[in-house]
């Protein structure tokens, strides 16, 4: 294990030049810095959402007290719900307040020499955690917990523990060094729990380090351990799990209602196999990021694009747009798909080099230019960065997308991308967005996308719930759903009992509708996390509205209100820890304390029993048959090789010669 991790670190040192999670140290600061001694990660994926608990021990090896600044890339759709600091051996849990106020409290407590910590969100890039003081020669223990829904596509669940940062925030990296080494113990434990049988679990790129154990059909455990101080927080850990092939198309409901006030739910619809193949030709525009931050990734990106071109059909056409500070086309006009064109383009792609900034706007603008209205068009936008040249506000991109009849599919590489912007571009165009960790196979992800585009899609998704006073619905899935994707809705309900659930969509111009009945309980305390997940989905929608228009107005207040009520870190709220009595001093109500107690109690109960069944349409299935299994893109083929052809040919010629000789 030790040798493997050393190899891993060396491999990374000579590989991509990405930054990582770790302790940030001022470049021109005094000698010595805080070290990460222990990094223990405990992930529990439970029927569609994950709870990630990160326990860390910081150590100050110097002879003076210091501040620890720990940063880690923002996990997708994650709501940070706990920040704890151990003071005199006792855990002090953080509370959420407005971002500026939290910073001010932290500053005052730091000046007063009292123990304090703050966790805040840095735009779309990272969570930053500041802890003060870490006493000279002493250890300080900190805990972070965040919740996030899990993306399941084609019955394959994917969890990412993000550690690689994309070197996007130049301002930060010009002032800080990152110390990513874990000096004593690194533990990663991921428990995958599902009420549907799991076929297999794997860790992409880390199979040689990870141990995978099966406890039951619905519970698997992945662990990666190092006790030798050789681990470094510079590589994402990606866990995939695949549900059994016969997993049905279904409706799952994860409700929470404690008897007081409205209930909260997470509704997940996994459609059946109703989407038929599309045969018409498609015009493909690949818009590829060539900015400097793509340095370590351009080889795999161009290789993936080249290989994906070979997958296109003869009736398709393609073109490639390249952008960094500006944008240019690799070739003039549309290229018919044939061997000569694909090979010529691939040869040019292999010679590309990276430099400059990220003019995402120019790239997208070029990709949207020259589309022919009588042909179906698709734009594949591949980038690892945030727009930092040219127009960069989301509203600029929304204006650009207006009245464009083209689907944009975005591939968001690494943790430095402006994920919200890339997702929004895809969403408004009716496409989809895929996150691609450096541990993922970009080619595989593009192929997965290509296969989805070869089938009909469900457009204009509407989910109606009648009979239980359902309200405040918010969505994490897009209004257009492709093969294998799920529809995820969060919401609240005021009455318990049976609800009529209708799913409406448009497929190839025809309206379709499915219906079932779902029981909403009067009392169910199994998943108290639903409240925070719902609140997060709401804040995400509100932030999207702000970014679309560039105007904050009352939307900001709504996000602050949700953040404080449900104790989640948002763009406008942070979590702060102060010594016990100081919460009263700053008039901060201990809302999170009672919420966390309830969530921990529920988690404790859940771990003692088998995964709770969440299927809600068993009595009246919404669909017949199975859900869409696999990516839809893996096509197998009988294939012979040249050797066999030579052998057969040789045999044939030999027999001909024998015949001539009589």
């Amino acid at each position: 294990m030790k040798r493997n991790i050393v190899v891993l670190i060396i491999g990374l040192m000579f590989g991509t030049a990405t930054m990582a999670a770790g302790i940030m140290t001022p470049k021109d600061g005094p000698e010595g810095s805080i070290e990460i001694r222990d990094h223990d990660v405990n992930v529990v994926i439970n029927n569609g959402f994950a709870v990630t608990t990160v326990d860390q021990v910081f150590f100050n090896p110097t002879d003076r007290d210091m501040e620890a600044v720990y940063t880690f890339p923002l996990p997708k759709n994650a709501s940070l719900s706990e920040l704890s600091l151990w003071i005199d051996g006792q855990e002090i849990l953080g509370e959420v307040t407005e971002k500026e106020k939290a910073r001010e409290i932290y500053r005052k407590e730091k000046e007063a020499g009292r123990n304090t910590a703050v966790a805040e969100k840095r735009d779309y890039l990272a969570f930053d955690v500041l802890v003060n003081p870490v006493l000279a020669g002493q250890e300080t223990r900190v805990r972070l917990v965040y919740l996030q829904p899990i993306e399941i596509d084609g019955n394959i669940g994917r969890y990412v523990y993000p550690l690689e940062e994309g070197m996007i925030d130049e301002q930060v990296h010009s002032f800080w060094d990152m110390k990513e080494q874990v000096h004593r113990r690194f533990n990663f434990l991921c428990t995958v729990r599902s009420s549907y049988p799991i076929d297999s679990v794997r860790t992409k790129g880390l199979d040689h380090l990870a141990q995978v154990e099966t406890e039951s059909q619905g519970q698997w455990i992945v662990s990666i351990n190092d006790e030798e101080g050789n681990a470094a927080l510079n590589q994402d850990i990606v866990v995939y799990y695949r549900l059994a092939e016969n997993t049905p198309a279904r409706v799952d409901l994860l409700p929470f209602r404690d008897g007081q006030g409205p209930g909260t739910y997470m509704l997940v619809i996994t459609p059946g196999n109703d989407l038929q193949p599309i045969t018409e030709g498609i015009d493909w525009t690949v818009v590829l990021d060539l900015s400097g931050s793509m340095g370590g990734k351009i080889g795999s990106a161009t290789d993936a694009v080249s290989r994906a071109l070979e997958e296109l059909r003869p009736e398709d056409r393609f073109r490639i747009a390249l952008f960094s500070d500006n944008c240019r086309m690799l070739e003039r006009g549309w290229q018919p798909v044939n061997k000569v064109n694909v090979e010529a383009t691939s040869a040019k792609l292999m010679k590309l080099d990276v430099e400059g900034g990220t003019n995402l706007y120019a790239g997208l603008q070029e990709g949207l230019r020259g589309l022919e209205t009588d042909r179906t068009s698709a734009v594949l936008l591949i980038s690892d960065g945030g727009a930092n040249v040219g127009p960069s506000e989301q509203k600029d991109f929304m204006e650009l997308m207006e009245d464009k009849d083209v689907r944009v599919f975005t591939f968001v590489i690494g943790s430095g991308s402006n994920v919200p912007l890339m997702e929004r571009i895809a969403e408004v165009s009716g496409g989809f967005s895929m996150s691609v960790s450096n541990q993922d196979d970009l080619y595989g992800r593009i192929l997965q996308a290509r296969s989805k585009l070869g089938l009909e899609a469900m457009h204009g998704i509407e989910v109606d719930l009648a009979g239980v006073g359902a309200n405040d619905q918010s969505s994490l899935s897009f209004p257009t759903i492709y093969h294998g994707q799920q529809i995820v809705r969060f919401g609240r309900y005021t009455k318990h009992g049976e609800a009529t659930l209708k799913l409406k969509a448009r497929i190839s111009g025809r309206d379709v509708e499915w219906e079932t009945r779902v029981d909403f309980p009067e009392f169910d305390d199994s998943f108290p996390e639903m409240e925070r997940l719902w609140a997060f989905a709401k804040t995400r929608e509100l932030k999207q509205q702000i970014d679309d228009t560039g105007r904050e107005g009352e939307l900001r207040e709504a996000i602050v209100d949700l953040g404080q009520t449900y104790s989640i870190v948002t763009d406008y709220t942070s979590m702060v820890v102060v010594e016990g009595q100081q919460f009263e001093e700053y008039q901060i109500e201990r809302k999170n304390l009672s919420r966390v107690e309830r969530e921990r109690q529920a988690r404790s109960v859940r771990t003692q029993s088998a995964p709770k069944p969440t299927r809600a349409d068993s009595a009246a299935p919404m669909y017949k048959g199975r859900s869409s299994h696999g990516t839809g893109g893996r096509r197998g083929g009988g294939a012979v090789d040249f050797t066999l052809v030579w052998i057969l040919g040789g045999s044939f010629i030999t027999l001909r010669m024998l015949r001539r000789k009589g």
Partner: protein
Amino acid sequence: MSIRSGLPWRTLSLAAVALVAAALPGSLELLELNREAVAGGQIWRLVTGHLVHGSLYHLGLDLAAWVLAGLLFEPALGRRYWTVLAIAAVCIDAGFLFLQPDLAAYCGLSGILNGIMVAGTMALWRSARQRGTTGPSALYLLVLLGILGKIALEGIGGTPLFSEIDRLGAIPVPMAHALGALGAVLVIGRTRLPAAENLIIYA
């Protein structure tokens, strides 16, 4: 054994169908053995899936081997040619549907091609043995073992030997070759030996 000039019409007719299918736009998506489409009632794909290919490269390789195998083995199989094809296809279809859940679709001639090669070689070997000709008998046995060995190696290695995977437009499925061979064994193993004089090779 006699050798005569002529053409393996059964083989060539299927090759022509594969060529026509390749020329039709969108034929792969419409005709491949797609798991979900079959479940949805499009059962013709159980047959047509063997006649379409993931790329021109895939088609070229398969067709070259297909025609050569037809020249060599079709006469040895006679009317059982279609039976071998049918049983091999059934075996491959069943294997794909029930043993390869990770694949969404399957296409290509080579699975049934392996069935033809194994069946043809078995028929030639048994005929030579029946006639008591030691040399040809040993040669055919050697060829048969070679083919089966190749299939076994593919199974162990996970990919067809030497094939250029990236250009196929499909992930190689060694199991298809093994199941095609199994179909051949089921047919030839259960039928009576052909009359020796009927064993001919087009050359």
